[in-house]
């Protein structure tokens, strides 16, 4: 780019060592450091330090009052060998993430693709309908009303009237119902940033690409999607995947609001809930940090995996 020529006295790299050159460059671009400083300092304090410090705390026993006592890997051993609820939470999280993650991603992509060829005005309205649940804050609580456990809940009432059931189903108090319902609610609120990103990505593809594709022998819209559309919006696919994964793992609060804490028989207990349990209720900060580190590793791992999968698109 053009920045280098901007220098009042650009230096040639040949006549000095690497360290000297770097130092010169740092001094020459002083202003850039001042510009990023406020953001980077805050980011370091509230994101980098907590991640690194959690990793340290996860190796200790710490209750916020006494100084941390070093344990090495004991917390992790307890987590994976001794904590049945954590193992249950891991499997719940796994089921939840494996269904909601891909399903919400595909739904965002498919809906964005479906509405791509609509006229701009209709597209704006449809976008709003699909996007609204994810920005409306507490509105997901309506699912609690719809599936309420008494006969006044719309679902129970309707089923009773039709004679399909004889007694109300306690949806949010029954171990077999909470997980499926939470998955449905999660999908309902999941058309967020990635959805908008896909819409923009699809809009940004040049029509001539499709025309060239048609001339090259693409016969139907599925082939076009795979060979032309998706490869042209790979950057958006990547960004959307990251957004989807992050929000899938951030769904704990909604589960708590709908099913209570802990959920019945821990049926919808996820790693997030374990973290909350030990971190802000039992104050076993060392142990909770180990949970946070595991969660962190899972999220980064999921992103790496998805990156690998996405590199296969269009081949």
């Amino acid at each position: 780019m053009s920045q280098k020529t901007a220098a009042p006295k650009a230096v040639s790299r040949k006549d000095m060592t690497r360290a000297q050159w770097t130092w010169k460059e740092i001094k020459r671009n002083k202003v850039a450091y001042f510009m990023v400083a406020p953001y980077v300092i805050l980011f370091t304090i509230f994101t980098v330090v907590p991640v690194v410090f959690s990793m340290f705390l996860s190796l200790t026993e710490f209750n916020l009052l006494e100084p941390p006592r070093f344990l090495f890997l004991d917390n992790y051993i307890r987590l994976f060998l001794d904590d049945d609820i954590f193992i249950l939470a891991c499997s719940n999280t796994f089921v939840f993430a494996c269904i909601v993650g891909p399903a919400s991603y595909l739904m965002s992509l498919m809906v964005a693709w479906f509405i791509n060829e609509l006229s701009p005005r209709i597209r704006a309205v449809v976008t709003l309908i699909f996007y609204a649940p994810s920005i409306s804050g507490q509105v997901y609580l309506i699912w609690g009303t719809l599936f309420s456990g008494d006969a006044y809940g719309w679902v129970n009432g309707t089923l009773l009237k039709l004679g399909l059931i004889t007694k109300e189903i306690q949806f949010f108090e029954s171990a077999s119902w909470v997980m499926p319902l939470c998955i449905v609610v999660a999908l309902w609120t999941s058309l967020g940033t990635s959805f908008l990103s896909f819409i923009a990505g699809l809009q940004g593809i040049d029509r001539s690409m499709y025309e060239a594709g048609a001339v090259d022998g693409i016969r139907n819209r599925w082939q076009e999607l795979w060979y032309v559309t998706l490869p042209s919006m790979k950057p958006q696919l990547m960004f959307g995947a990251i957004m989807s994964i992050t929000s899938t793992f951030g769904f704990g609060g909604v589960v708590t609001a709908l099913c209570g804490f802990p959920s019945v028989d821990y049926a919808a207990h996820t790693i997030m809930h374990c973290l909350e349990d030990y971190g802000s209720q039992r104050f076993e900060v060392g142990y909770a940090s180990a949970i946070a580190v595991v969660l962190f590793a899972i999220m980064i791992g999921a992103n790496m995996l998805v990156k690998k999968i996405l590199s296969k698109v269009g081949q």
Partner: protein
Amino acid sequence: MAKLRTRKHKVVLNRSAGGDAGIVFMLVILGAFMFLPMLYVVMQSLKPLDELWMFPPRFYVVKPTFKNFKDLFTLMNDSWVPFSRYIFNTVFISVVGTAGHLFFASLAAYAFAKIKFPGGKFMFTTIRTSLMFHATVTSLVNFIVMSWFGWVDTYAAVIIPGFASTLGLYLMKQFMDTNVSGAVLESSRLDGASELKTFWVIAMPMVKPAWLTLIIYRFKDLWNEGASIYIHSEQLKTFNYAIQQIMAGGIKRAGASAASTVVMMMVPILVFIISQSNIIETMGSSGMKD
């Protein structure tokens, strides 16, 4: 091979009628899934008491009334802390939080996008990586950090960490990469303008969709901010929190609670309607290349 038809010198892409019908069908099904619960909230808020508690329950409202909204305002007036205080808190947090985030994130995004300096790429990659994990991971230690700073139970705990929220910086940097031309900045620098002035006078006006998007994203989060773990004093709590308290009032408040949900959701939805095209434009450059 491919069946090509031409109309008005334009290649008509192969689109089968069956495919179109299938797409419309899918859209209607998914659209109903998304829209009906939202509609039900609005219906609930307009139902009189006997329709809220009737058997069998009815989806739609027959005798719509605004009584639930009136009840909501009565409940607001009865609260222990004056309701205006909750509203002030939400407005204060939203305005200061959004302004600070917009300024600091744009300033840093400009440097990352348009100045090449040692360490810049590393810093940006690190920041970008944090998009990959949810903030819950850091919440535990954040609480400890807050208590070191003595920020527990102050506005600062809610406002200041959000200045460095990642998504805003990322979107702004990406948008500047594609939409601010180096040549224009160059000529401004050659005219003797300082880097700060170039940023503020030349670059920022060119990225209006991006900063509108940043404002909306931050505002939406702060508006929906409920009970923060850092805030104990009733006087510092938000509008959303107070509304939740009303909703927690149980059966007798079912109507007012639906009304409050409608009030809360109207604001972000209206803001999105106004700014949709700008947000979509910003998202156009959101892609991640490596």
